[in-house]
């Protein structure tokens, strides 16, 4: 785990994303994105796309296979479906992030919890809403398997999948360097059916700055 100083002089965006809201933004090559778990225990469901070609997008399977490890942390290269490096995680005060658990959906909530959960707000509602608002052809079939920043989803030696608490906390953050121009789409998770948000979804903060600009 490392900490880095944020160069406020070159700030491009500094946004508080309320619980249950999406955020979509282009990030230039070389610029940094920091996602901050403001109050702790909050899942930030995140997708990335090559800004020049949305067909070339974050791939969970390619990312974990390329590093032969299921956890995302400092040094992880986020791989695209065409084998390109979209971003690199350059700092991580949390230590571990998940990319197997996916995003909650109204439909999967019915399967996981109860048939009467369909009305509850879910990440994939936010993803689709933001994709349609962004336009440029982005739609439901572009909502692929995402990263869950600040989530801990270990796999056991006998092939079980478990959901565990406790790696994140107030103020913990992950920082990424864009290796090409990318589009980022975040859903600040509204899930109330499990402890991924400690049953109390809270805001996250997204900060983008031009790392190359001198103060």
């Amino acid at each position, binding site marked *: 785990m490392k900490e880095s100083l944020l160069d406020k002089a070159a700030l491009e965006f500094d946004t508080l994303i309320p619980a249950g809201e999406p955020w979509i933004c282009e990030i230039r090559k070389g610029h940094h994105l920091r996602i901050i778990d403001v109050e702790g225990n909050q899942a930030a469901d995140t997708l990335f796309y090559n800004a020049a070609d*949305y*067909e*070339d997008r974050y*791939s*969970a*399977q*390619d990312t*974990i*296979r390329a590093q*032969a*490890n*299921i*956890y995302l942390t400092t040094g992880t290269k986020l791989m695209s*479906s*065409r*084998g390109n490096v979209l971003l690199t995680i350059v700092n991580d005060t949390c230590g*571990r992030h998940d990319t*197997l*658990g*996916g*995003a909650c*959906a109204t*439909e*999967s909530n*019915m*399967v*996981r919890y*109860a*048939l009467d959960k369909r009305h509850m707000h879910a990440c*994939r509602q936010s993803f689709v809403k933001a994709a349609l608002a962004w336009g440029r052809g982005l739609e*439901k*079939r*572009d909502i*692929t*398997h995402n990263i869950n920043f600040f989530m801990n989803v*270990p*796999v*056991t*030696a006998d*092939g*079980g*999948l*478990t*959901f565990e608490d406790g790696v994140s906390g107030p103020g913990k953050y992950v920082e990424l360097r864009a290796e090409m121009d990318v589009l980022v789409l975040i859903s600040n998770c509204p899930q109330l059916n499990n402890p991924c948000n400690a049953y109390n979804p809270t805001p996250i903060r997204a900060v983008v700055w031009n790392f190359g600009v001198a103060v």
Partner: protein
Amino acid sequence: MIEPGATWSHILKRGTALWITDIEGGANVGAIFYNADNPTERYNMPDTLKAQHTAHLTQGNVLYSDMGRILCSITADTVGWHDPLSGSANEALVTAKYGEARYQAHRNACHKNACDGLLIELAKYGLGARDLAATVNFFSKVVVDGSGDMRFASPHSRRGDYVELRAEMNVLVILNTCQHPMDPSRQYAPKPVHVAIRQVAAPGPADPCRISRPENERGFVLTERYFM
């Protein structure tokens, strides 16, 4: 038979089952699944894994779409572990690992890669790169240790091992027999598999996949509602 390194597709009808048999042992079958009646609905890796709290697939498990429905159930399996984590190799990865072997010199023994095989087959149904997300690698096993490291387990599938997938919807299934992307062997040596389709009875109230966990009972209800 699906030849080594080849791609095959079929619209598997609800009420039928697909048998895939490892003819020689050591096969790998990369697989993707879509609702044939509405291909925007497709296999979803996280929904499949988290509904069943598993990071491997075997008999009793089902394959979930992103719409809360069951595309296929695994109704028989002599292998015991199929890999849902590792995805597919593209041309660059295959060339880096096995060297270049192009059609001009090698004819149909040229090196093939699963990504291109799946994308070409998807195009035959009007689908493309935006529709290709996670694959399942049948007959292969990847274990994860306490620090998260992934390791390809070999040898795994034996000659004659098989898996049966019962279609719970009308499912476009695309299979590719290229080697697993984490197979450490430096030799390009994909294996063939045999496929067969038969009519099967609809899953009853005591169906083992249905009652394997409460999530799957709800998944079957949602799938049956879709056909009402």
